[in-house]
């Protein structure tokens, strides 16, 4: 367990599935160098196959006894989907508009399909997913190489690319399938919670760009922070599939509202709701009942009295309240450890534990770091 833990809360009542977060992440991190197929952030339709296909059935995570479960490494074409492009250049010569590969599968292949029968009782909601930066990460436990580590200062889970040798046990071990194999560099890569932004006091790109303002970011132990209030004070934000035993640190405010069903004549069935509570229970466990109860009670309170701290938080008035990332904290940490504030990896191995000369790290500004030799 790390000293402090950064967490994100996503309010599913407000996600409109616009994929702005997906695009923000992709353009920042994964549009190049073997990452083209990866979505460190994706928004899937639930119920649905998700990304990668049927990820909840691919194993990983821990059983009740605490043993890491075997898992499956998804196939690029069949499970993630090959990113395809079009022959824009050839159009000038009169060619017809064609994709460069025959698309057979891709993320959100079943977007907005959901479940049930239209128009009587069909339903779905959007489920945005990033790495959960777990307290007990399955990927970290699966790595025989000590290449995955959890930062002490904020619990962000990172891959040390210098140590990673591309065995991919981490992918089998992660129950959320949120760590990916980059075949171009033969190493595993994953969401880094935009730590270079975070260290400068900026939220991750996915959270900053979110048009629905559904994402809150902050330290779990920051009692003044909205993340702490949603997770610990009101207990309306719950981890996804906590039954996997990894103690995820991305929390979700479950969807509370859904329209009533229609009967065969197209009339509203009073008091019915389309979203089966069993589905929410499957995703968020039995705590979902308490969360929904609290949310409904606070909504009522707000209606009746005009007062509710919880509703004020969820309305998300100010980015400055939603994101509590004191960058002085990171500067302080860097100073205490004698590190470059932007050093992306811990120094255990970059120094070349067993080699005489260490490796060099290049930075764009602020000078290079030359790691030492034998300790």
């Amino acid at each position, binding site marked *: 367990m790390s000293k402090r833990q950064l967490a994100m809360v996503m309010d599913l009542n407000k996600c409109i599935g616009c994929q702005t977060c997906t695009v923000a992440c992709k353009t920042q991190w994964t*549009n*190049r*160098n*073997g990452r083209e*197929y990866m979505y460190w952030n994706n928004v899937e339709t639930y119920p649905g196959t998700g990304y990668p296909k049927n990820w909840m059935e691919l*194993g*990983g995570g821990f059983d009740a006894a*605490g*043993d*890491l*479960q*075997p*898992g*499956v*490494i*998804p*196939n*690029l074409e069949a499970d*993630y989907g*090959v990113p395809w*492009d079009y022959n824009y250049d050839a159009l000038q010569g009169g060619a017809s508009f064609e994709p460069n590969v025959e698309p057979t599968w891709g993320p959100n292949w079943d977007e907005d399909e959901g479940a049930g029968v239209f128009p009587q009782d069909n339903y779905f909601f959007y489920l945005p997913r990033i790495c959960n930066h777990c307290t*007990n990460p399955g990927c*970290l*436990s*699966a*790595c*025989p*190489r*000590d290449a995955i580590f959890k930062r002490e200062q904020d619990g962000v889970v990172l891959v040390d*690319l*210098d*140590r990673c*040798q*591309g*065995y*991919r*046990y981490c*992918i*089998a*071990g992660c129950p959320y399938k949120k760590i*990916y*194999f980059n*075949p*171009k*560099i*033969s*190493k595993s890569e994953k969401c880094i919670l935009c730590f270079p932004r975070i260290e400068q006091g900026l939220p991750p790109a996915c959270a900053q760009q979110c048009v629905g303002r559904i994402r809150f970011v902050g330290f779990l132990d920051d009692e003044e922070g909205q993340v702490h209030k949603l997770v610990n004070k009101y207990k309306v934000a719950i981890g996804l599939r906590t039954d996997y035993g990894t103690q995820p640190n991305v929390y979700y405010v479950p969807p509370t509202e859904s329209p009533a069903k229609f009967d065969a004549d197209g009339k509203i069935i009073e008091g019915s709701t389309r979203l089966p509570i069993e589905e929410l229970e499957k995703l968020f466990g039995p705590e979902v009942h308490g969360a929904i109860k609290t949310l409904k009670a606070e909504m009522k309170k707000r209606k009746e009295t005009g007062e509710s701290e919880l509703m004020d938080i969820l309305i998300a008035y100010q980015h400055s309240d939603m994101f509590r990332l004191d960058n002085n904290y990171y500067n302080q940490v860097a100073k205490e450890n004698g590190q470059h504030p932007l050093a992306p990896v811990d120094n255990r*191995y970059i120094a*070349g*534990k*067993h*080699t*005489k*000369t*260490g*490796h*060099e*790290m*290049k930075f*764009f500004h602020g000078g290079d770091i030359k790691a030492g030799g034998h300790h």
Partner: protein
Amino acid sequence: MKKLTSTLLAAATIASALAADTAINALKVSGSLDKVTNTSAVWKGAKFSTVTLYPQTTIKMNDKNANELNVDAKAVKAEVAAVYNKSKIAFLIKWPDGTKSVQQSGKTDTYGDGFAVQFASNYSNPAELPYIGMGSAGRQAVIHLQKETAKTYEPNGNGNVGTQVNPNQTDLFDKDLKAFNKTVDSLGNADYERSFVGEGFRSMTEIKDGSSQSSSNMTYVKKGWAGTLSRSLKDEYVDLNAAAIPVAFAVWDGDKLGRNGLKYLTSWTAVVLKKGDDKLVNALHGKIEGDAAKGKESALANGCTGCHQMENADAPNLMGPSLTNIGGYATADYLRESLVNPSAVVVPGYNRNAHSNYAWYNIEDGKRVSTMPDHSWMEKADIDNIVAYLKTLKAEAK
């Protein structure tokens, strides 16, 4: 009758333990060993020895498909020759593999065939060699790895970030775009060869600073691979200028989803450079004392199976390393040491976090202390018997 059967069984198991691989005799050559391939002339007079590589089953990894593919994996027989000159030593290893597997550049679930050669940094005491799986705390090993891969683009720290963008997002067209793609392509590397130094799996560090010079190749010929490695006899990690040196070999089968943690490996094998010093050869290839049948009884009586899976028929047991192939890749001295001083070598690859209820070791003063009870109270003859039994625990060859 029962007694007769057990005596016969004992005789048979001892015979199989005795049929272990022999030492490899290295040939001294005068020619250069700088760039060696499987067709180099240096191999003409070299003598090939058979080595047996056993499926590594000590720690069960968590890839479901790979585990299913490797149930009851058989051992692999390889032919190895060694040559050396004043400054370098070279190995040629040939092993059968029905399919050529290449780790492909556009796939997430393909694995390449490969091989590795391991050296011990300190082998002055043959009874205390580094743990066969890439060394152990205080006992450093050096590994040279070659793997069949498509081009890989190692993050090289050379600061060439200008080429690390999607070509569609550059402002380049036509000729300029082609030139850009060509530059990017030239930065890829199809030769995967890497060298590592470490004291056990988890601590392995890639040697990137040029402090170890080696050259490695692998060629697929006639339903099998021929791999060569040539390296300096001496660098800052190992000194191979001795009458005999311990070497271990590993091979990977990409078709069986092999990668580290899932491979075939030999025990430490003596490579004889000069005749006259039999200490290492005897330690690694000498006669095993003890009665395997009595050892099996003793092992059962002492409750070894309470923590270890001993034979394939036994249920897997997470409390200790699986011993189903230990006779194949562990030396008799290692087995003896593990009985009388379990903390001398604590199997390094085990991740305690993956199985929180099964602590193979505890950390005391920063050192890993095995949770296995010390068996130094046992009679020497009894220990010899158990070691003889453990040496019989190994898969049959294909």
